[in-house]
C-alpha cells in the first residue's frame, strides 16, 4: 500500500493539471456551434484565427516585444550576474536585495508604480513602455539563472587560462562564455515566456498603438466562450512546449 498510494496521488494531481488543457486542445477542433458538445472535426477556428488581421498584428507585436524584452534582459541580467559573481563592491547586498524584491513583489504593485512613472516622465504608452516594464520583471530571473550557473563554475579555469597567457577578452570568449551560454539561453527563454504570458503589468502600461496578444485574449475571453480562443490557446501551448523542450535540452546537454 505504501508504494502505490503516493504514485496514485501523483497521477491524480497531474490529471487535474492536464485535463483542462487537454479539453482546450480537443475542443479547438470541435465543429459544434454550442461549444460544449462534440460536433465533428474542423480546422475552421484556426482558419478564422489566421484570417483575423488584428489578431495577427497583436501576435507579431507580442512576439517582437517578447524577443526584444528577453534579449535586453538577458544582456543586462548576464552582466549583472557576472559583476555580482566576481566583484566585491559597495552596495552588493543592496543590489541583490533589490533584485529579490522585484522578483517577489506582486505584479500589480510593479504595474501601478511603472504606470505612475511613465505618466510623470511622459513616456508614451506603447512598445517602449512595455519593453521597459517587461525587461524590469524579467531581469531578476535571468540574474538568478546565470548566477546559479556561475556558482558551480570551477574558478581555477580562468586563472589557468590567464597563466597560459590568454588576454581578458580571449578568456571571456573561450572560457567564460561557453560556460554561461546554457544559462543565457535558459534565461532568455524564461524571459521570453514571462513576457508573452504577462497580463497584469501589460494591462497598465500598454497603449492602443501597440496591442499585444495577452490583452487581446483577455478581451476575447471576457466576451464569452469563443472557439477561436481554444485554437489560439492550443497554438500557444504547442509553442511554449517547443520552447520548454528546447531549453531543457540545452540545459541537459550542457550538464554532460
Amino acid at each position, binding site marked *: 500500500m505504501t508504494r502505490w498510494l503516493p504514485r496514485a496521488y501523483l497521477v491524480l494531481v497531474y490529471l487535474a493539471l492536464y485535463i483542462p488543457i487537454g479539453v482546450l486542445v480537443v475542443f479547438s477542433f470541435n465543429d459544434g456551434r454550442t461549444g460544449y458538445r462534440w460536433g465533428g472535426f474542423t480546422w475552421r477556428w484556426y482558419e478564422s484565427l489566421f484570417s483575423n488581421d488584428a489578431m495577427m498584428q497583436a501576435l507579431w507585436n507580442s512576439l517582437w516585444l517578447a524577443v526584444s524584452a528577453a534579449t535586453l534582459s538577458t*544582456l543586462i541580467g548576464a*552582466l549583472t550576474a557576472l559583476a555580482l559573481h566576481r566583484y566585491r563592491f559597495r552596495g552588493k547586498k543592496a543590489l541583490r536585495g533589490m533584485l529579490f524584491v522585484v522578483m517577489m513583489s506582486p505584479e500589480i504593485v510593479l504595474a501601478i508604480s511603472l504606470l505612475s512613472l511613465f505618466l510623470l516622465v511622459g513616456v508614451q504608452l506603447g512598445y517602449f513602455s512595455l519593453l521597459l516594464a517587461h525587461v524590469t520583471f524579467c531581469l531578476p530571473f535571468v540574474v538568478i539563472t546565470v548566477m546559479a550557473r556561475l556558482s558551480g563554475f570551477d574558478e581555477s579555469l580562468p586563472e589557468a587560462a590567464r597563466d597560459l597567457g590568454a588576454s581578458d577578452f580571449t578568456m571571456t570568449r573561450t572560457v567564460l562564455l561557453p560556460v554561461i551560454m546554457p544559462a543565457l539561453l535558459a534565461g532568455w527563454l524564461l524571459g521570453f515566456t514571462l513576457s508573452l504570458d504577462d497580463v497584469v503589468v501589460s494591462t497598465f502600461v500598454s497603449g492602443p498603438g501597440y496591442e499585444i496578444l495577452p490583452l487581446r485574449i483577455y478581451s476575447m475571453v*471576457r*466576451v464569452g466562450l469563443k472557439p477561436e480562443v481554444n485554437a489560439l490557446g492550443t497554438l500557444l501551448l504547442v509553442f511554449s512546449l517547443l520552447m520548454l523542450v528546447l531549453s531543457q535540452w540545452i540545459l541537459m546537454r550542457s550538464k554532460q
Partner: protein
Amino acid sequence: MKKLAIAGLAAVTLAGCSDQQEEAQVLNLYNWSEYMPQEVLDRFEEEIGIQVVYTTYDSNEAMYARLKLLDDSSQYDLAVPSTYYVNKMRKEDLLMEIDHSQIEGFDNLDPELVDQSFDKDNAYSVPYLWGTTGLAIDSDAVEEGEVTGWADLWDQQYEGQVMLTNDMREVFHVGLRVLGYSGNSTDPEEIEEAYQKLTELMPSVRTFNSDAPRMPYLEGETDIGMIWNGEAFMGKEDMPSLEYIYPEEGVIVWLDSFVIPKNAANPEAAHKFISFVLQPEISALISEDIGYATPNLAARDLLPEEVASNRTSYPTAEDMENAEFQEDVGDEAMQIYNRYWEQLKTGR
C-alpha cells in the same frame, strides 16, 4: 563588452521605434466591445484608405479614466461615451470641437436627438447610436407574463439566476427606480437607500457582465436580469427564447456619441470616420447588425421592415413610458456611487 551592451541596447530600442513609425494613416477608435460591425471597419479602410485600430472598453468610467490618463499623449482619435460623459468631458476640456464643415450627413440625424442640453449645437459630439437597458428573460426558464418590472428581480424564486450589467450607474439606476427615486439621483441618502435595496438583491445575482451581456443567458448561466437592447437583439438570433422586456418602472435610456479627444493625433481621419458612419447605408447596416437604434432618420428608411418594427431595437411610445435618460451626476456623487459599488460587488 560594454560597447556590445550599449550597441545591443540601442539596436533593440531603435528597432522598436522604427517599428512604430512605419505605420501608415491610422485611426485609433476607442469603443465599447461589440459595438461596431467589422464590416464597417473593413469598408472604411477599403474606401477611405485609413486603417482603423479598434480597442474596446466595457464602461464609461474605464473609457474616461483611460482618456484622462493618456490625455496629452494623443493615443486615441475617436471615442464613444454616453451622454452624461460627453457632458462631463466637455466641461473638463477633454474634447476637441467638432469641425462641422468636415462632417457630411449631419442633417440626417433625428432633430430630437441633436442640439441637446448636454452639448448645445453638437459642438463636441455627434450621435452614434441610442438604446435602452431593460430586462431580459429566458422564456424557457421563466414564465413570460410573470416578469413586468425591475422589482421582479428581487423575487426569491430567481435566486442565483440574475445577471446585472457591470455598470455602476445602470445598476444603481435600477435600485433607485425600484424605490421610486430618479435614476440620476445625487442625494447621498437616496443612493445609500438604493445600495441597501441592492444588497438584498445580491444573493440572487450570479454575475455582472458588460462585455457582452447576452452571453450569460446564451451560456445558460442566468435566466433573468438586465440587458442592453442591442445585445438582446443579437442574442435572440442564437437563442430564440431570449425575450426583452420594458420594465414598468421605466427603461434606462442612453445615447452614445462620437467625440474627438482634445489631443487626437489624427482628427482629420476622425471626422472622415464620423461622416462615413453618417451615410444612411452604413448607419442602417450598423443598426441591422448589432440591433441598437440609429439616430439617423435617413438610415431608418433603409432598414428592412422586420428591423424597423422590432420593438427591442425601436421601442414604441408605450414602451418608453417612465423611461429615464441617463445624466451626469457630478464627481462628488460619483464618489459615493463608487464606494457603494465596490462594496456591493465584493459583499456576500
